């Protein structure tokens, strides 16, 4: 598969600012999805397993 290389970009001239922008979007997306899934989907899905108030003594 030949690629249309119209210019060569070497190591020192290359700053992946497009990637940085995409990854910032990803960071924000992950944060929002996490907060929604944890605090709304999960915490809202009661009942949830909690600790016992008093440990039960069993025979």
């Amino acid at each position: 598969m030949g690629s249309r290389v119209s210019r060569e970009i070497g190591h020192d001239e290359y700053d992946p600012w497009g990637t940085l922008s995409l990854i910032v979007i990803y960071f924000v997306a992950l944060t929002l999805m996490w907060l929604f899934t944890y605090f709304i989907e999960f915490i809202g899905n009661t009942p949830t397993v909690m600790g016992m108030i008093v440990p039960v003594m069993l025979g």
Partner: protein
Amino acid sequence: MTALFVDEYPAEARLVKAAFLSSFIAFGIGALFGIIQALHRTDIFRFIDSIKYYTVLTGHGVFLVIAFTIFFLVGLYQWAVTDSLERGPVDIRFTWFWYGLMAIGSFLAAISILAGFLEQPPMVLGAELRANVLFTFYAPLEANPLYYIGLALFLVGTWLAGIDWFRTWWAWRDENPGKRIPLRTFMVLTTMIMFFLGSIGVIVSILVFILPWSLEITESLNPLLTRTLFWFFGHMIVYFWLLPAYLLWYSVLPKLSGGRLFSDPLARVVFILFVLLSTPVGIHHQYMDPGIAEGFKFIAMTNTMFLLLPSFLTAFTVVASMEHGARQRGGEGRFNWLRALPWRNPAFTGMALAGLIFAFGGFTGIVNAGMNINYLVHNALWIPGHIHAQVGTATALTLMAGSYWLVPQLTGNRLVGRQVALVQVVLWFVGIVFMTNSMFRAGLVGVPRRTAEPQYQGFDYDVGVGSMGELNAQLALGGTLLFISAMLFLVLMLLTVFNNDSEPLVDGTLPPALSGPEDSPQVLDNLRLWFGIAFVLVVLAYALPLAGIVAQSGLFGQDIPPFPVSSEAVIYLEFGLEYVGAFVT
């Protein structure tokens, strides 16, 4: 134009093709089972008994995530080592030997599973030939000993493959002292170190506990222990599926994009992190298990969260490499460069779409890993959603896309149907979006996984937005698109293999990385060091939990006999129990 792989290394190419053949046959059968499941569990079309569903499900798991993925891995890695070290194995007969073990092992496991479709399975090794135990084969469910023997042989074959590549590297090192390990070989060797370490758990479980118990040499085993040993292996294995895709993303995708790998050193760091962290997280598959203390679960959780780092790094490095290619091709702007990428190339598009799905699937993995939030999703249909986004797309779609690039170089034939190939990869993407979306949403309302009939008598799912009917339709639609896509892929591969009077359009040269290995410290190549640290981390994560399990309930459990899953016996058992159950309540 450099020489094709098949012309430079014909003997090795033959081995790679054999491995791919095994891989694709398994893929076809596994895909067929998948569509049967998608239509059955949604109650859209049921033509088998629900009891046989579990035979189908076992086959779907084993044919796809054991045979399809790992046969492809050994083929791909054989190519990667040969091409990057520019030499073949020390003794190619040994190479064929390990391939042969894998072929025999997978064949034995396969017939054990498929015998489950027979009304009268034959008797083998003193028991009915069947393996309705799913890919995880949790005891006390019991399969025929032949199933366990098959799996063990397959694993041994894979082990020997790793040893073969180490031998090749050592031989190369003798002739190239002081040189850095070429990146592709580095990725192969680190993957195999990770595999050696993680597979110890399941090998011990099978050889010491499950196989003797199925042969009636021992009378009992400890189900929590064997389950924990399985998951000692079970998380590492998902990275065994993922890392071949990463190898393609790091070494081939930049070239397909028209650019160069952004950073070789970071690729090495990523693979080292997988060596270190893939195994000591296994307990995150057991958050809901009794018999393992919360403290150990917390440690597994933190280890797992740190295991996000190599994947996060990969996202940046791989996308930066794609961006480099796009800009070299004339792309401009903050986001517009995406349009300059070679979207007409099915190999490129397949890998790019696979990466996109993986980024989303990664989020679902964070949820799974989240210890207490796991209560929300454990054993619900969300989990297969995650599985199909990750191994089902990040891996499978990348392997298919990679095949479009590699198979022409292995056969010396041009790829048949390049446009159809593009349709195929996009179809897979669309199918996965529908199917996993349905699985995630259904899982959140409590629909379980691994069941023939998620429709129950005593309650309805509280679906919220949409309806069960809509969720089922989406799942079936997605599954159907995936099946069509899978068949298209296999047809194109077949046609390409027979497309003899043609020349491939691809060229196998891989440009050097923008930042090469010389920009990284030599210690990254010190594989012995990384193995040592990984070993210590595994001991720290597992010694106490395993000791606790053995101390509490015994190395061989407390009189726990096998439960062979045979259709006939269970029907009588069912009647008996319904009677008893009704009587008791």
